């Protein structure tokens, strides 16, 4: 499983983020992106020595500053289930597509249809 997939699945869950500076941020993950930039809410920020604490209602972390993230164990299971569900869904979709085009003549027609479908999905 891809690490960023795991991260996306953990949206809404509490987590601990340790930055390269050694500071830690404890909070709930609101959103994340492909660069590991995060938005967290209800955050407790602790300095590297563990002596000072700050409470932030919301915070944005630029991904390149992250050392690691600690995530609740159940998120891995949730991510696996999602992966399986997505695989089943795409299998069902593909089966439907093949069934529709099996009797049509001309490979080109089928091919164009495929491209059309693909473009539609992107929107």
């Amino acid at each position: 499983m891809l690490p960023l997939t795991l991260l996306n699945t953990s949206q809404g869950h509490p987590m601990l983020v340790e930055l390269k500076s050694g500071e830690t941020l404890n909070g709930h993950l609101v959103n994340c992106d492909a660069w590991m930039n995060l938005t967290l809410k209800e955050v407790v920020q602790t300095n590297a020595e563990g002596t000072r604490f700050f409470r932030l209602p919301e915070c944005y972390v630029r991904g390149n500053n992250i050392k690691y993230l600690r995530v609740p164990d159940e998120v891995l299971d949730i991510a696996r289930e999602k992966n399986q569900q997505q695989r089943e869904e795409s299998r069902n979709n593909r089966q439907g597509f093949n069934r529709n085009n099996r009797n049509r003549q001309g490979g080109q027609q089928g091919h164009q249809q495929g491209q059309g479908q693909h473009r539609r999905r992107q929107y």
Partner: protein
Amino acid sequence: MSALSPYVGKTVTVITSDGRLFIGTLQGFDQTTNLILQSAKERIIVPDNATETLDLGLYLLRGESVVLCGLVDDEIEASIDWEKVRGMKLKEARLPKR
């Protein structure tokens, strides 16, 4: 170009750029060496005291901080009494000074 795929699902030991040692089950990785470590533990090995092991749970390690990721032989690992192990503290990884 070799990837970490043969290690997925196995026990690995990871050293990070700040000189920490982790051990856990590798669940996933990507091109930038971001790692998913399940049931991660940190081993703190020092010259004078017993080795401490901290249980950490599910860990997402950013690739930038990964120095090495090595395959662990589970049999040998189980036979080691970690409390007895002593060793030098790992240094931080630093770029060479110009």
